[in-house]
């Protein structure tokens, strides 16, 4: 791609271009610097942190802080590290991501290809759902979960995130599916396929890019969520974001910067990994509808 862009002109290293590269390099450095500080601090000992320069390389790298952050650091009264909360987050994020994406996909399929009376109103209502701030839904949601006896459970959190995510996933899928020619659905109907057969055999196999987009989007949103986690998570289903906050804010004795840094990276790692795995689909899927033809 990049090679093609300039293929028809001679390599042009003029002053202007040099300046652009320099600027881009600086910006990249600016963005990467905090990550570098976090990584290097997390493998330093506390003594080294206190003595040394923030930007200096670690003298004797050690993973002690990582292991403490994972399994020994105190988050409030317990001192089990982030591990249990990390799994809490997984137990909440994966089902909520899968559910909201799958339902969003079916919603999008209906809105794009089985136009019913009032479909536009439903679509507009769902769009509005994208703009509702978290704070607005907290109280009604708390009453609802309480009534359903799902307060402070992982199941409750999964439901909250699924419902909140549906507006986004439906929007993504609907906009992707309107680019699928309606004649495909017509042809399949004449071939004798029904609603779900058409979805399973024709629409679903076309959906990989947009599924990736929704997986990344939902995973990031749900994993990074703090507010719902702290309100609805109780003590048993607390996600890693809440635990990280508790860990960093626990003020007994000295502040262990290396442990804090390691914990922060651990909490952020899954979203990084999912971007690395599926990132190429993200841009492709987001622009799929926009530049068709």
């Amino acid at each position, binding site marked *: 791609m990049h090679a093609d862009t300039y293929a028809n002109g001679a390599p042009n290293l003029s002053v202007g271009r040099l300046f652009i590269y320099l600027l881009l390099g600086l910006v990249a450095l600016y963005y990467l610097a905090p990550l570098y500080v976090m990584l290097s601090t997390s493998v330093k000992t506390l003594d080294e942190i206190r003595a040394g320069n923030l930007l200096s390389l670690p003298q004797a790298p050690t993973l002690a802080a990582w292991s403490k952050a994972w399994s020994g650091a105190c988050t409030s009264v317990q001192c089990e590290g982030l591990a249990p909360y990390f799994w809490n987050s997984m137990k909440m994020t994966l089902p909520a991501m899968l559910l909201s994406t799958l339902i969003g996909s079916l919603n999008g399929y209906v809105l794009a290809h089985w136009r019913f009376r009032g479909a536009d109103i439903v679509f507009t209502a769902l769009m509005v759902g994208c703009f509702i701030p978290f704070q607005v839904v907290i109280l009604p949601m708390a009453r609802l979960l309480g009534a359903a006896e799902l307060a402070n459970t992982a199941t409750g959190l999964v439901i909250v995130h699924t419902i909140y995510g549906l507006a986004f996933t439906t929007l993504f899928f609907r906009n992707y599916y309107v680019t699928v*020619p309606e004649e495909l659905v*017509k042809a399949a109907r*004449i071939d004798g396929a029904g609603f779900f057969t058409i979805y399973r055999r024709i629409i679903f196999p076309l959906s990989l890019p947009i599924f990736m987009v929704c997986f990344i989007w939902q995973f990031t949103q749900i994993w990074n969520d703090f507010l719902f986690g702290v309100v609805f998570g109780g003590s048993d289903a607390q996600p890693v974001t809440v635990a990280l906050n508790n860990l960093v804010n626990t003020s007994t004795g000295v502040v262990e910067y290396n442990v804090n840094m390691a914990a922060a990276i651990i909490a952020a790692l899954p979203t990084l990994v999912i971007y690395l795995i599926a990132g190429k689909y993200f841009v492709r899927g987001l622009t799929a509808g926009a530049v068709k033809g």
Partner: protein
Amino acid sequence: MASLSIRNVRKVYPNGAEVLKGVDLDIEDGQFLILVGGSGCGKSTLLNMIAGLETVSDGEIRIGDRCVNHVPPKSRDIAMVFQSYALYPTMTVRENISFGLGIRKVPKEEQKKTVERVADILKISHLLDRKPAMLSGGQRQRVAMGRAIARDPALFLFDEPLSNLDAKLRVDMRAEIKLMHQRLGSTIVYVTHDQIEAMTLGDRIAVMKDGVVQQFGSPQEIYDQPANLFVAGFIGSPSMNFLRGRLASLGRGSAFMLEHEDNTTLLPLPMEANLTAWHGREVILGVRPEHVTDAASARRSEAADGRHPTEVACTVELTEPTGPDTLVFARFNGGRITCRTHPRAAAVPGGRMTLAFDLSKAVLFDPATEQRIA
């Protein structure tokens, strides 16, 4: 195989737009029906209603002797070929063709045989394991037809199937569709906006405009006796010439007053209908380009079948050589007409030449109603 009968079918959308205003069409088993018209004339809507993809607001559609108004598409025993081919992009050609069979629970062994037979007919056997994206336009078209043939339906529906092909391929595929019709003897409804496709393929043509069937008949009927000005202008290429002018009495019959430059020539009309009511009134004369030709060609055909063209001298405005003929443009009665002449007889633009009007197949229209008078 089945007949198709459309009785007073109407389509009104919830917003009040009336797309079809009472359509009546009947074709017999094995006939090739063409729905032709400009965009927005309702031809595709009618096809979708026959397919069951759109509901019928009023009237009745019968396939064979069964009213299908409330029968879902899959139970109508039809197959459809779409303009965009609508091949399932994630399936191979083989899977595309057998998709409908699989859904209908046709045994695997039989599916395999059908796919091979159809691929053989359409010469796509070597493409069976490819995905649609790897095929050319013409090959996709064949696969789309194969998918329809494999189903062996009572009724084939074609929705502008050749519109996305380049000109040469379109002519080839047109012939293939006609061959397929002859071989399978199937009943076909075919939507197109191309009047040449309509003429070459159809047993019966329905010319549509604004949701109304303007004329329903055989290709030759529609060509020779167009019901109104729209049909006359729509069918035929180059289009029929229309001349506005008055009728006069001439002997026992009537004549059209042809005005050119400062002269008026009386063109005797061979029609048997009594036109006395129109004498002195304005009419529109419709005459096809091949019936206005150079004097030499006219004399040759006159000798052959005893017609008596009227010769008129005029100035040529423009010429368009097509190869076998040269189209000559000249001005009469305040309008420009197209004449099909022998290439060697055509004058250069600005030059004089004698044109021969053969009115044996001419038609007359009422300028107010635009309906044919005679």
